[in-house]
Structures are given as C-alpha cells and as structure tokens.
C-alpha cells in the first residue's frame, strides 16, 4: 500500500516538473488582440480572405499583414469592431459584395454536344472537351461551386444551373475560384441589372447553341448610360461602377439581361411549376 502511494507521488512530482519545464521552454507569447479579433470574426473558417481560417486572419490583422476590413464575409460592424481593437480608423463605406453565376443556359435552352459519363463534378467534367455543353463558356451544372460554398448559399437547379442566393451569400469568393469556367463574379449587392452570359462566341454560333446567350447585338450598350455596358469580344459586360436603369433589360432580344430580384422569383416559380408537374 505504502509503496504504491510513494510510487505515485514520485511519478506525480516528476511529471509535474516536466510539465512546468515544458511550459517555460515552449511558452508562446500570444497577443491578446488575436484572441479578441478571432472572437469577433464570423468563425466559419471559410478561407475567403485567403488565410487558413478566422484565427489565422486575426493573427495577420494584428501583425499588420491584413487590413481590418480583410474579412469579406463579416459585415461593416465586424470591421468597425476590429478597427476599434486595432486602434485605427475605418476608411469609407464598404458595399457588400455577393456572387452571381453569369450563365442562364439551362438544359431547356442550351444544347449539349455529347452525353457525359464520369465524375459528377464540374472541374472533372471540364477536363473532357471542356464539358458537355455546346457552349464552352456555360455553367456545367454539376455543383462544384455549391460543394465549396461554406454558407450553403448556392442551389443547384434541376435544370442544370447553379444559382446564388444573395441573402445567404457572404461574398467569400470560394465559388469564384472553384468554377472551372470562371463564370462566377462578385458584384455589389445593390446592383440589379446583370448580363447572364459569359460567351465570347460570335452571335451566329451562340444562336445555334443557346437561346438565352448574348449575341453581341449591342442594343443594351446603346441604351445604357455611357460606359455602363461595354462590348468585349461579342459579349456585353456590365461595369458595376455605374448604375444601370432597369429598363435596359427590356431591350435585350434574347432575354439575357435580367433584373436580379425579379429574375430569382421567376426562376423559383418555374422550378416550382416543374416540381409540381413532375409530381402529377
């Protein structure tokens, strides 16, 4: 009995000593601000800022490597709080940015060049002739963007398109990097008019393969304020710095230009109709 007690006591002492020494030797002086900022950050560890997680960003902010508003997800409030901790002034208003998929060519309106058989993932599908869509710029609809979205803000429509919910989207930009076609863009949330096409093909070719593709007719560019919509290689591209009146959408002969809020409602309604039709 007594030996056991002695052995345990000695053991406890030795181990305790070891721990104490280790704590001295390996001690890391952590800036208390890092912990504070980490607590303020959203904690989703989405990586949208380019760092390996929220605590990594907090460290970068404290070390001055990243700005106090470096978190693309957090609201202005978050940036303000961090600025307070760091003792700096926050410069200017920051408009929240959200992602948008610049393609509306779903299976009903865009043709396919072959039946695809392989991994259900856009990056893999794109390795085979650039994917099964006739349009080499179009959304492949296999959901790689939805898979990487840490906020579950991207829905895959049954008709083969990805759609971002601007309410849930935080603008972290993960989908932008993941999309093998590079057709997801971050845009200011208050901009409503969008050209939902990324095709640089000539109008004639677009007409053949997609009913809602931009044919490069330039009507919108003429209708919109100077420089708000520019033509880049047969494609109308929106300059989000300039506000565009919603009436511009009306001139597009292929209905490629949409007003975001209304468009989402429309899509939802048609999806619901389809689902109801499928149930009958």
């Amino acid at each position: 009995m007594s030996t056991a007690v002695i052995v345990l006591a000695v053991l406890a002492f030795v181990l305790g000593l070891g721990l104490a020494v280790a704590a001295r030797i390996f001690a890391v002086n952590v800036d208390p601000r890092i912990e504070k900022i980490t607590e303020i950050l959203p904690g989703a560890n989405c990586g949208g800022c380019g760092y390996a997680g929220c605590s990594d960003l907090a460290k970068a902010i404290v070390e001055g490597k990243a700005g106090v508003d470096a978190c693309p997800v957090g609201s202005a409030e978050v940036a303000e709080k961090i600025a307070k901790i760091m003792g700096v002034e926050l410069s200017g208003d920051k408009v929240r940015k959200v992602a948008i998929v610049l393609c509306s060519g779903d299976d009903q309106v865009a043709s396919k060049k072959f039946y695809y058989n392989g991994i259900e993932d856009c990056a893999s599908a794109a390795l085979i002739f650039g994917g099964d869509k006739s349009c080499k710029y179009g959304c492949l609809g296999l959901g790689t963007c939805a898979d990487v979205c840490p906020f579950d803000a991207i829905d895959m429509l049954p008709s083969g398109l990805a759609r971002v919910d601007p309410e849930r989207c935080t603008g972290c930009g993960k989908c932008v990097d993941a999309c093998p076609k590079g057709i997801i863009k971050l845009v200011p949330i208050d901009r409503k008019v969008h050209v939902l096409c990324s095709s640089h093909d000539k109008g004639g070719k677009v007409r053949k393969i997609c009913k809602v593709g931009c044919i490069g007719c330039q009507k919108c560019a003429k209708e919109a304020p100077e420089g708000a919509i520019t033509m880049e290689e047969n494609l109308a591209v929106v300059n989000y710095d300039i506000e565009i009146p919603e009436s511009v959408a009306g001139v597009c002969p292929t209905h490629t230009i949409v007003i975001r809020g209304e468009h989402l409602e429309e899509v939802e309604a048609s999806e619901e109709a389809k689902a109801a039709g499928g149930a009958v």
Partner: protein
Amino acid sequence: MSGRHFFGGVHPEYHKEMTAGKAIEAMPMPEKLVVHFAQNIGSMPTPLVKRGDQVKKGQVIAEASGFVSVPVHAPTSGKVEAVDMFPNPVGAETLAAVIAPDGEDAWAEGLNVEQDTDSMNGDQIKGLIRDAGLVGMGGATFPTHVKLSPPEGKSIDTLILNGAECEPYLTADHRLMLEHPAEILEGASFFARVLDVKRVIVAIEKNKPDAIEKMKKAVEVKEGYSVEALDVVYPQGAEKQLIFALTGRRVPAGGLPMDVNVLVQNVGTAFAAYEAVRFKRPLLERVVTVTGNGVAEPKNIRARIGTRFEDMIDRCGGLAEDTVKVISGGPMMGVAQYSLDAAVTKGTSGIVTLRKDEVVQFVSDPCIRCGRCVEACPMRLNPSALSIFIEMCHFEDAAEYHVTDCIECGSCAYVCPSQRPLVHHFRRAKAEIRKMSRKAG
C-alpha cells in the same frame, strides 16, 4: 531476358481479328481536309496560311514555334477554304486549316526526291526528320527530333522499336510490319545513326506471329538488330514497361527512357522517318485502323492527315445506328469523340466504334477495396487509395501517393468492380497539382 514481364497489367479482349488480316488500303482523296495545327505535344506551331491561299502538297502551313514543336504540312495541293476552330480528336476545338484538294496532288518544290542517305551525317538526318514534322505516332505525338537530341552526358545504347501494339482492336502497326519490314528497319537505322546506337530491338507481342516472322527475316541482314517476342499483356507497349520487360532497366519515377540509356520509337514513326530521310517526304499520311462493331467493314486505311472521321467511317460502310462511342485511338487510352468532324492527326492510330451493348458506363460506386486495381497497376500505384483521396479533394495526399506517375493506361478502371472512373480521377488530380505548383511557383 526476353519474355520478362512487368508488374501488373490486364488481359482485355483484343478483337484484333477484325482487321489483322486486311491489307492497308489507300483512302481516296476526300472533298476536304481539316488539318489541325496543334498535332504535337509541346508548343503549338505557328500558322502560316490564311483563307484563300493556294498550297502545294508538302508545303509548310504552320512552322515550329520552338524546340519542342514541329511544322505541319499541307497533305495535298489545293486551296485553303477556312482557318477556324474545329474539333481536335485529342481535346477541345483547336485552330485548323480546311483545305479543298484540287485533285492534282502536286508536290511542292524540292520534296519527294530520293536522297543520298549514305553521305548524310547525324545532324542532317535529324534536320530532315524535324523538317518532315515527325512525332511519336503511337499516340503520344512527342516531337521525334527532341527524342533524338539527348542532353550532354546522356548516351543511348539501345534503340527499341515498339511494335507491341498492345491496345485492343488496333492493327495499324501490325500491318505496317507485315507490309513494310525493310522500310521500317531503314527508318530505324537513321535513328541509330543519329545517336550512334549499335543495338536495336524490335519488340512485338506474341499475338502477331506473322509480324514476328517477317521482322525476323528482315533483321537477318542487319548487324546488331534483333526481334523479341513479348508476352501478351496490356500495357506491354507502354514505354517504361517495355524497357523493363526487354532490358530489366527501371526508368526512374518521373524520369525518361534516356535516363537508362534507351530510346523507344514506334514502328510507324520509323516508317515515317524512312519516308522523310530517304525521299524527303514530310509526314502527310498515316495508317489508321477503322474498326469495331459500329462499322460494317473494318479496315486498315492509309489516310491523309486531316481526313475527317466521317469520311473514314463512310469508307468502311458507315456507322451503325446504335453506335454510341467513337474513339480516337484504342479503347484503353483513346479519346471518345463527340463529333465525326474530328479529323485524323499525326497521332491517330485508330478509330474504334462501340455499339450500345458493348459500352460499360462508369457508375462510381464506393470503392470496396478489393485490390484488383493495385494488382493491375503497371506503375505499382494504389489506385484505390488515390481515388478515395481525390474524391475528398485531398490532392496533396494524392501527390504524396505518386499520382503524377500514373501513365493513364486504364488497367485499374478496366478491372474495377465498382466501375469507378479512376483514370478520370487521376487526370483531375494531375490538373489540380499542376495548378497548385503553378500557384506556389
């Protein structure tokens, strides 16, 4: 040493009987030829023609754009009707010249002239081979003159002429060996002279006894030449596996055959070298096996580069209604086509058609770890573990498990009872790893 076997491998159904007994026949001139500029691995040659140009047979229509690049020539005389994007059998659409033949088939000046080869030195031979636009014709399309230019300090002591033709269905090389054995050996002798190689081995799988016999007879008069019969197992014709089976030498992971003093050339390339050096004829045509149950009359066809697949298939009696796959190359490593507008390139060894009931689709069931892929992999990789890593997007782990050493032979996916698209996974991982190293670098 011969008869030695590499690790792994599979035994697919070969179906070579469909065309093995059929002599090579010439393809009549089609109405138009679609000649792609991107026909070699490396940098794409620079186009020299535009719409409306008249070209002569053998005229350079795109010039080499660097060391690892070769010129492209007009396969016949005629008019350039368009320069635009067309489906390239190995990838997406690439730039190609559409040539409408004028029916004269008139050679450009200075070509198609018999040369005095005895007086040539190595550099002259190499120059002719480069100017003729030669690439590896087994399907890899690596510029031949680059292979003939080992860097300082590397010497080649063995030249292997690859006549294994281990891909199922294909018989183009087989027929070439039967019909042109002497020409192939002369082409090989040019390679041997460039590199000062004394030992030349013609490697043929045992399922082509007639070709072995023919080549054996042909090498009798040549000193240092021999013919080796190889076991029939796929992928016997893959470079590293072939070298190991014949010489016992292991090409280091990530290395090249020249690291073990060996050069491997396809028999088709040797034949093209014969034409290029002896007659100064650029690479304008090649033998293509058009086969499979999707065509009524399978054939071995000598076709101009640029002949559309549709014309090739029509020559073989047209495509059966329920043909669902048309493959450029063999069924193990070839590329399934989406359009018959794809045209023959320098690397097109065959067009294989598969009907509905012959096609097995990938279903991507979970890996049951049966280990068949591990047994089949000739590179001794672990496709099971690799595919599981890649499914979870753990590309670093895949790199650590040497996915970049995968030769994409398809043996693993061929035997996978879960029908997982393993090669597709590995291509994905390789692409991601390239992307990561680009970012890092």
